[in-house]
């Protein structure tokens, strides 16, 4: 019976990640505040990382696969044993790097948002667009004069 239920539950997990991606994309494009956009972008990147880890997961019949970091594979038979009992270690290594890079990018965006608020007094992109259009109109009038 568990041969039927486990693929179903793993499909639920996969579809949940995709739904999270869609909701986060909605948050990035539809919400006006830059802070909300940053929150949605972190959720988006985490969902993509989760999909990468999920691709590396492997179902071992009858039991849970071992994590690759705790298996001793220095013996000659090591790699074959690693491939038999653990999940794929490559996506985990990539995601570990991606999380740290995402942290750096988020810090950069936080700093840029602080500067935007300091200069324009708002973080809403709708108000920023209005301010930008207002400035452009004044400049055009100045050129005409």
């Amino acid at each position: 019976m568990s041969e039927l239920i486990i693929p179903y539950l793993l499909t639920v997990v996969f579809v949940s990640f995709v739904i999270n991606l869609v909701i986060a994309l909605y948050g990035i494009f539809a919400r006006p505040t830059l802070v909300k956009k940053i929150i949605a972008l972190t959720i988006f990147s985490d969902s993509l990382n989760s999909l990468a880890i999920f691709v590396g997961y492997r179902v071992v019949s009858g039991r849970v696969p071992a994590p690759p970091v705790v298996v001793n594979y220095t013996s000659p038979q090591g790699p074959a044993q690693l491939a038999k009992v653990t999940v794929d270690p490559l996506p985990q290594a990539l995601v570990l790097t991606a999380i740290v890079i995402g942290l750096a990018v988020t810090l950069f965006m936080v700093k840029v948002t602080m500067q935007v608020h300091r200069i324009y007094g708002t973080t809403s992109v709708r108000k920023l667009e209005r301010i930008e259009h207002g400035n452009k109109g004044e400049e055009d009038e100045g050129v005409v004069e």
Partner: protein
Amino acid sequence: MIDLIAALLMAVAAVTSIVFTYLAVVEKNLIQAVVFSAVQSTMYALIYFLLMAPDIVLVYLPVGVGIYPAIILLLIKKTDKVDE
């Protein structure tokens, strides 16, 4: 049996993370949105543990539950409190 329980916990955590992602995106109060995002990160950390990636959990839990909410709360304190 143990793999069935692991898959079941994974599915429950994934569905809970959908709820908290939705709440974090539609919430008007930005501080509450950050808290919902932190809860969603906790759910993801549980999923990573059940997907047999304990090294990812060790990195993701401080980053996703500690540093992201901290810096975004600092940002909210210096800028607007409410989404429009």
